[in-house]
């Protein structure tokens, strides 16, 4: 089965979150549940090289290339960041490098979580998105050359 497109997956997530309307607490509870479903990253990968630092939360990210696609695995020391990572992985992992690099991740704002990608220095989530896209761009450059 082919993986649905990035935007199809984003739209699915927006649809799911629309059930919560503006109940921020219910959204965070759902994100917390997602965090429990995302497998922990193996300890050997939780090393400085894979660490993306935020002011308060830490994120570890690794990627593997499979042909023209990138597969991501990630983890965080805070539950809510980890739940958001689960959403990001659902959207981006196993997509074509070219599409990841170009992706417009509009779902984060649409589900009311734009505070995580704003200018507050509180978490590694925004840095993680940048790193995922950067890795995809590097992989794509390698693929086309």
């Amino acid at each position: 089965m082919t993986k649905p497109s990035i935007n199809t997956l984003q739209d699915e997530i927006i649809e799911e979150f629309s059930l919560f309307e503006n109940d921020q607490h219910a959204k965070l509870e759902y994100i917390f549940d997602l965090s429990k479903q995302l497998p922990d990253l193996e300890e050997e990968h939780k090393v400085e090289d894979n660490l993306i630092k935020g002011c308060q939360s830490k994120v570890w990210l690794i990627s593997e290339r499979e042909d023209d696609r990138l597969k991501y695995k990630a983890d965080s020391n805070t539950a809510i960041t980890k739940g958001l990572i689960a959403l990001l992985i659902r959207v981006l992992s196993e997509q074509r490098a070219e599409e990841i690099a170009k992706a417009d991740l509009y779902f984060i704002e649409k589900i009311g979580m734009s505070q995580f990608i704003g200018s507050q220095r509180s978490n590694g989530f925004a840095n993680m998105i940048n790193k995922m896209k950067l890795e995809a761009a590097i992989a794509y450059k390698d693929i086309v050359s």
Partner: protein
Amino acid sequence: MNSSSVPTETKPKAFDIDRIRAQFPVLHQEVNGQQLVYFDNAATTQKPKVVLDALTDYYQTMNANIHRGVHTLADRATAAFEATRESIRGFINAGEKEEIIFTKGTTDGINLVASSWGRANLQKGDEVIISTLEHHSNIVPWQIICEEKGAVIKVIPVDDNGDLIIEEFNKLLSPKTRLVSVVQVSNALGTINPVKEIIEKAHNAGALVVVDGAQSSSHLTIDVQALDCDFFVFSGHKMYGPTGTGIVYGKRRLLEVMPPYQGGGEMIKEVTFEKTTFNEIPYKFEAGTPNIADIVGLKFAVDFINSLGKENIIAHEEMLLDYAHEKLSSIPGLRFIGTARNKAGVVSFVIEGIHHFDIGMMLDAKGIAIRTGHHCTQPLMARFGIDGTARASFSVYNTTEEIDRLAESLQGIVKMMS
């Protein structure tokens, strides 16, 4: 006697919390569908309407650049600006208003003292004593100047409660000690330090003392002459005043011989390309156009505090702190960080198995604003073997009902997340 004719006893309503809250427009809003609870007062307090009105009034009736204008608006603006200087002098009981220098905030103020006094006075091998409780803004400026001068920083340790170990301070003091810079109330733990004792001992050893009053200025009564501190540095925005306002109090004899640390307009007496002579204190340290409107507004914050009475504010905040300790101690897995003998304003805690970031996010979803993280005190967090805490900090407009909401929400978070 007809009971209805008995005059109602006019009990002095020293502390009418509803009336106080009515003066803070920002408090009357919903956040994430819930009535806002603002417990991030150690970061910055909210501003009463008198302060907000003063800012608008300033711009609408007197906005002009100060000190040099010959026109009426410049006179008005200068008078309002200098009225705040006098008001601050009274607020901390300084001897003279020339000892009050306006800055952007506490960080700016400590940098002023470190750059000016430090550059002129520190020499290789000299020692500067700070403490483990310090905010980064009372660590880094000293590191920068000490590195430049070859001076050495010594650190007073804290015990497990978050109290300074004074015996260790005694041992650190030596003829090499030139300056001691300590916080009066810890922003991360709320510890009230015995600064009077520290100042006496430092003076006996021939050292000067800087007191970081960022937190204490709104929670304690400040008398710089009784303390006999050499410098007292604080912020306006943590005591109901506008952001971008701060104060350095310094003893006249020290300020007069300290070199300016920024050059420009306002701080000069006469400029030629060969040589410039400098203005008198305090203007020598106020280069450029200052933050006039906000400093004008700051006077109204001081008036607000005085109208309530500092002792009433202190009593209310002590009550809230005791109540918070009592209520939060029943939360499963919650551990207080900072259980000093004397505390003000702050309750800092961790909860077993739940990251402070998650606590802060979940509380925000319930409309409760607290601060989480290392509170710009990384060495202190390292001392306690943690990477941060959740911190609720209280102010005059907070209530026990709000603390009840915090405790209930924390119960819910613990139930859900652990």
